[in-house]
């Protein structure tokens, strides 16, 4: 299959598919055809990413599936795509989640179906672009462009307070990323006219410059992750977004910031990363502990899962800034796992919301009596969310906690409280919603999940368990790239 531009296909099939869906079903005509077209586009988009996994050479940290074309020669900007062991799994995860989202919105979305599906497809292509761009301008262009579809998704199909949430989401992330643009332009200038990310990795920079660059990147990525204290847009966005929007937001969009740390902050400013370790670790621990407590007291299920996402992402940034292989790999596993688990949690909440039109925990109780199949799935995902062994949630958290203890016992100790807090908020919520006597006549009238929902959740459950008991293939893929990254960071740039 050499010579087939797989990454370009992974980017442009969903985008062109999305435009096709708009052409077919704009103005709310031909709704069934629009659905089928989008399913087809999403499936095809996922199918072209599969060879990335099977043909990936895990023995090297070099970029694979590389495509290089001139784009804007005036500024030596190139259409340069490529993936390594760190970014490749995310391309797959993203394309997979898009497929799930299209299926999840199949019957639930009744208004402006074509626009809904098209927005998700276009976003999927753009996000694949972010993960595979190796030219800084290309990366930035995709990074910013991804705001547009999500803004529309939240604003059009969201809940009652959607306008506020959509604008807040957009402005927060835009504010972060524009400073990054200045940093990119500075690096272009400092490197004598190159926008190649890999050239910048080798560019010698003094500590002060590195620190300024690090802070500029930090603003961009911290907002996107999101890290405490710039996380406040996330609960709003999650609560107001439609189910599909929440799933993509949690499963994919949050990973962009973390990915940015690995691609930009650590390798371009290694010495600054070291010197700001205290800051990053502190912020991460605050996210883990404080946000964990905040999650505990939420009355809205979506808000609870949103806060739990922030806490989990705190674990990811913690893992990165321990600067050892266990920590970084654990963090990446945690990102992938969180993609499945949080996506599944939001889908479960979506299943309930579609039937009851409420996300308040207090409106539920005794769901297990009327929806036994659903309750079983929900239990599995809630367990995974709290990091139960044999689920994917455990692997990453355990690796990061272990790495933290190696670095400093007290960091490890504080980080490990997430296992308690996670169990507390996930399972307590589960107990209040699912167990107990049937709370009211609305709950009594609930119907269990149908075949479409069953298979959607079953596939996710499969991956959650697979990753939990046998994470080795995923780890094998990333070893070489992570080692290379850590060697580079340890060497530093100050000599």
């Amino acid at each position, binding site marked *: 299959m050499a010579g087939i531009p797989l990454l370009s296909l992974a980017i442009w099939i969903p985008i062109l598919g999305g435009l096709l869906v708009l052409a077919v079903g704009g103005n709310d005509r031909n709704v069934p055809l629009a659905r089928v077209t989008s399913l087809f586009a999403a499936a095809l988009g996922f199918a072209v990413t599969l060879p990335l996994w099977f043909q990936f050479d895990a023995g090297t940290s070099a970029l694979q599936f590389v495509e290089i074309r001139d784009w804007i*020669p005036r500024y030596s900007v190139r259409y340069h795509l490529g993936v390594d062991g760190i970014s490749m799994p995310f391309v797959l995860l993203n394309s997979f989640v898009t497929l799930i989202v299209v299926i999840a919105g199949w019957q639930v979305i009744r208004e402006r179906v074509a626009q809904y599906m098209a927005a998700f497809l276009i976003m999927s292509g753009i996000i694949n672009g972010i993960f595979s761009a190796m030219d800084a301008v290309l990366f930035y262009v995709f990074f910013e*462009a991804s705001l547009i579809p999500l803004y529309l998704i939240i604003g059009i199909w969201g809940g009652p307070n959607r306008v506020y949430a959509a604008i807040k989401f957009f402005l927060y992330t835009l504010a972060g990323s524009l400073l990054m643009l200045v940093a990119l332009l500075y690096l272009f200038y400092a490197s004598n006219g190159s926008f190649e990310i890999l050239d910048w990795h080798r560019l010698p920079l003094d500590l002060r410059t590195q620190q300024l660059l690090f802070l500029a990147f930090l603003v961009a990525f911290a907002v996107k992750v999101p890290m405490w204290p710039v996380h406040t847009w996330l609960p709003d966005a999650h609560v107001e977004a439609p189910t599909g929007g929440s799933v993509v937001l949690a499963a994919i969009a949050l990973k962009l910031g973390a990915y940015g740390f690995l691609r930009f902050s650590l390798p371009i400013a290694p010495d600054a990363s070291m010197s700001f370790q205290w800051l990053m670790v502190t912020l991460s621990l605050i996210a883990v502990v404080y946000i964990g407590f905040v999650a505990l007291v939420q009355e809205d299920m979506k808000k609870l899962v949103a806060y739990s996402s922030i806490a989990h992402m705190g674990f990811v940034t913690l893992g990165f800034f321990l600067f050892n292989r266990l920590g970084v790999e654990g963090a990446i596993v945690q990102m992938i796992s969180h993609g499945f688990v949080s996506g599944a949690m939001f889908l479960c909440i979506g299943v309930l919301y579609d039937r009851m039109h409420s996300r308040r925990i207090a409106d539920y109780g005794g769901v297990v009596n009327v929806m036994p199949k659903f309750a079983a799935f929900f239990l599995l995902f809630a367990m995974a969310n709290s990091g139960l062994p044999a689920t994917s949630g455990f692997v990453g958290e355990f690796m990061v906690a272990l790495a933290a203890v190696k670095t400093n016992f007290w960091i490890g100790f504080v980080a490990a409280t997430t296992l308690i807090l996670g169990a507390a908020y996930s399972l307590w919520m589960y107990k209040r919603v699912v167990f107990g006597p049937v709370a009211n006549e609305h709950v009594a009238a609930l119907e269990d999940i149908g075949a479409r929902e069953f298979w959607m959740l079953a596939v996710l459950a499969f991956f959650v368990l697979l990753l939990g008991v046998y994470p080795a293939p995923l780890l094998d893929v990333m070893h070489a790239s992570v080692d290379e990254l850590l060697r580079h960071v340890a060497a530093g740039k100050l000599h």
Partner: protein
Amino acid sequence: MEFERPDFSLAAAEIFVAVMTLVVMVAGTFLRRISRELGYALAQLTVIGAAFITVFSVDDPTVRYTFGTMYVSDWLGQVLKLFIYLSVFASLLYGRLYLIERRLEKAEYYVLMLLSMLGAMILVSANNLLVLYLGLEMMTLALYALVAFDRDNGLRSEAAIKYFVLGAISSGLLLYGMSMIYGATGSLDLGVVGQAVSLGAGDELVFKFGLAFLVAGIAFKFGVVPFHMWVADVYHGAPTPVTLLISSAPKLAAFALALRLLVGGFFGLAETWQPMLMLLAVASIVLGNLAAIAQSNIKRMLAYSGISHMGFVLLGLLAGVTDGGHQQVFNAYSSALFYAVSYALMSLASFGMVLLLARTGFEAEHIDDFKGLNRRSPWFAAMMMLVMFSMAGIPFFLGFFAKFAVLEAVVSAGHTWLAVLAVIMSVIGAYYYLRVVKVMYFDEPTDRTALIASSETRVLLSANALTLAVAGLMPQGLMAVCGYAILTSF
């Protein structure tokens, strides 16, 4: 004294437009009954014909002078002229229905349109202070009359008076500055002035004094802070097709004015005018973006957004003054040109949308008039969204690359803090563009009337908006044209 016959072929486009303007005027007087259709057809033909002449006369890249050295023919002028034709063409086409519905379509309207275009053309090709002034006055006088064209409407008349008084003051300032330069150098020719300035032949104090007046005059024409007082009221008060024209063609002409005067004439004193531009640019970007947030009238909002965009153009111009190499200077001016041209394209499309929504007795001037446009016309809602995101500088649209190019020049020139300030203000600016997208997509329509527009307008407006996306995916072409224009002209 021997009379040397000037090479008229270099000014063929101007001569053609001047002749055609007279034809339209005569036809309008004598063929009363069919004057309106004829006027429209002739005006469009004139624009297209001028574009042909310009396109076919630019194959020679060297700079050529005619009428002594009063008039210059170079790539910079030709590129700007082509975009000026485009704005006039779009203004005529998008605005036709608007004028007919308001009984404003008269032959005189087309005469004034063509005259202002002719003025702009002369301005961008002038190489002499007097010719520069001549072009400027010709353009603005015609525009004053166009703003007041709907003479029974109080708002329009007020805007016209305001425009006229402030415009006259600014012309006076410019003229005063020019007179000082003439006094110091004894010449009106920009080449001679440029040499005198760089050699320091003349009283430096007079130069600087004159320069300050010139910069003030230029700033008035750009409509940048603190010379922006007229902008919002004129944009708001003028009939929308005229607003569309004012927001594009005169800005391009002002860009030529700035480049020819400051870079062509006063590069020797660049250290003096750079801080002035910096002040103007920062103030415009800050105030334009902040004031735009408070507007509920979309024409006023676009006026303030235009102020901030002009601030970006000035950023590009001032970034050319560096201790860096030739490449950086070249990058800076071509980024400013690229920004000005991109802004003109975006501005045409945005006012085109305002015109599209207007109909008899209804102006569609409020942002709320765009409510629920996605329900009424998903296609044009998407087009407007594209324009708004482009103006906000979100990629993949042209506006992003315009900002990108200017910021790159600013950072290369070592003014990183200016770039940081500019991007922070861009975030604030994004809010009001997002608000337009919000009312179109997130709100329910209060008005469900179908859009009325001729098919030409629909096609051209769609093409105009889609250009922003296509040029955003492939910005190289337009960038190269702008770069070549700067490279060959200076």
